[in-house]
């Protein structure tokens, strides 16, 4: 079964639309230095490194060796993993597997991106099939608008429902000093008033009908680093380590046109497998906080249903009832989530790090006001594939 493994340290840079003061190697370094300080370790304590980004955005194809001075990988085993949008969570999984193998005690996971360095939509298109998809693909915004069109048609969901997700994420982001978007003007306004403003304001430009600017994630420059430790050392490093309880990932189709748009089948299958392994029968009751890779607003409705938090078509009710707000039964994205910060290769890893600090009690102004025994992190990418990681306070049996 392998060794039990926990997160013992987390560092991240503040998301920004452009960080011209640092190159890629230097922004990686900022996150690593922060994670080492958080765990009170030095680079000499690190036994192996897993690093990832989505190469298309910077056009640099050998990041593992190119970044070795910033990552701390000089004369160490270092492995590059890249899986598109899920890169950050897949990097976390690989670091976990390294530590679980018993061959490395302390493994550093790094995810980063400088989305300012290219046209994000153009670069995303080059990740798809060159013959059958690239000629007419419209990147992530178009792809997600397609999904929204089906979900809205199936369940009579409205633009107000989507806007309510955006409002939650942006209000939560105000508590997170590392979030890229801090929409201070939202402070003190009622939720209904904000929703109304988002769906009626002409300034809130339609990008791809039915999606407006406020429905989408930003494009950010940023980096994150998470330190995984085996059971032999984890409790010596962190007073409350965040244990890896279960993880699963699923890929289904290769071409986007093959995807079943009625349901997010990969997210449903991966989460079901993870919950079964953890013995979780009622996810809404048993999971205490979520850091979900929700790249756009309607994912905060439909994918909640696929994760088993409510029935099909019940996502809007769960949301409007306030269940997923900071003081709700299941706070979702206390960090403000992907819709408030999206340095793509770092994004999934930030979900894992944010889930971990909720368990460790180190989330500061964004710490949820309740006991956290289970925290769920997810990743989403490309052709609707899914990564799921469940973290827990109790050391697994």
């Amino acid at each position: 079964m392998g060794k039990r493994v926990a997160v013992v340290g987390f560092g991240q840079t503040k998301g920004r639309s452009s960080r011209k003061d640092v190159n890629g190697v230097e922004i990686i370094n900022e996150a690593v230095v922060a994670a080492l300080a958080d765990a009170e370790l030095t680079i000499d304590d690190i036994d192996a490194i897993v690093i990832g980004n989505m190469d298309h955005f910077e056009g640099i194809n050998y990041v593992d060796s190119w970044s070795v001075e910033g990552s701390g990988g000089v004369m160490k085993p270092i492995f590059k993993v890249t899986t598109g949008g899920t890169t950050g969570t897949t990097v976390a999984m690989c670091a976990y597997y390294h530590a679980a193998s018993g061959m490395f005690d302390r493994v550093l996971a790094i995810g980063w991106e400088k989305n300012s360095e290219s046209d994000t939509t153009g670069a995303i298109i080059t990740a798809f099939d060159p013959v059958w998809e690239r000629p007419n693909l419209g990147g992530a915004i178009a792809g997600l608008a397609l999904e929204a069109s089906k979900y809205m048609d199936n369940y009579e969901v409205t633009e107000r429902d989507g806007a309510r997700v955006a409002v939650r994420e942006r209000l939560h982001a105000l508590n997170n000093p590392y979030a890229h978007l801090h929409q201070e003007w939202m402070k003190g306004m009622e939720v209904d008033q904000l929703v109304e403003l988002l769906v009626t304001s002409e300034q809130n430009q339609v990008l791809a009908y039915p999606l407006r600017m406020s429905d989408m994630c930003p494009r950010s420059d940023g980096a994150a680093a998470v330190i995984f430790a085996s059971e032999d050392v984890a409790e010596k490093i962190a007073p409350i380590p965040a244990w890896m309880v279960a993880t699963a990932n699923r890929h289904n189709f290769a071409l986007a046109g093959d995807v079943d748009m009625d349901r997010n089948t990969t997210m449903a299958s991966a989460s079901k497998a993870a919950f079964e392994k953890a013995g979780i029968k009622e996810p809404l009751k048993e999971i205490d906080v979520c850091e979900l890779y929700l790249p756009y607003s309607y994912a905060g409705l439909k994918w909640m249903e696929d994760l088993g938090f409510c029935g099909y078509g019940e996502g809007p009710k769960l949301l409007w009832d306030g269940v997923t707000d900071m003081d709700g039964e299941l706070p979702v994205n206390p960090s403000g989530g992907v819709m408030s910060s999206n340095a793509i290769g770092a994004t999934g890893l930030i979900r894992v790090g944010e889930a971990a600090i909720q368990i460790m009690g180190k989330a500061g102004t964004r710490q949820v006001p309740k006991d956290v025994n289970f925290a769920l992190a997810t990743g989403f990418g490309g052709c609707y594939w899914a990564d799921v990681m469940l973290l827990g306070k109790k050391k697994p049996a």
Partner: protein
Amino acid sequence: MENNAQKKDEQELLTVSSGEMFQPYDWSVGKFGSKFLHELKENKKLFGSKCPKCGRVFIPPRKVCGQCYVAMDEFVPVSDEGEVYVCAIIQFGFVDPETGKQRPVPYGYAFIKLDGADTCLTHFVDSVDPEKFKVGARVRAVFEEKRKGSLMDIKHFELVD
């Protein structure tokens, strides 16, 4: 004055542009892709491949049904008419990496379930009217006059009343 003083201390932060880089590729499309493109170019006909196990018809055709993990060897004709499965009206501008130019907006974009196929072809639709261009709308392929053996030999799809 303050700005000037700042500039003395801090130099402007620079970026270096990649320039007009262009790296051509020649992608193999295999036996299945070649059949599809030949029929499209020469006869304005569309073909899929049928899985011997689950019976699903895949378009564009390919060798392996990933769900069953078995080889396909049957080509089946697929209609040039079908239904909009999911759709979007794209209004934001971006650089098309195929051409290096801004893609003209707005335009309709959809996954189209052609009659006789179980998967969708992704393509442009010649409508930006959300009242008419929506999930379930009927569409028909419009072919280019001069065809080159590419997916874009279908110019776009048009709404059928």
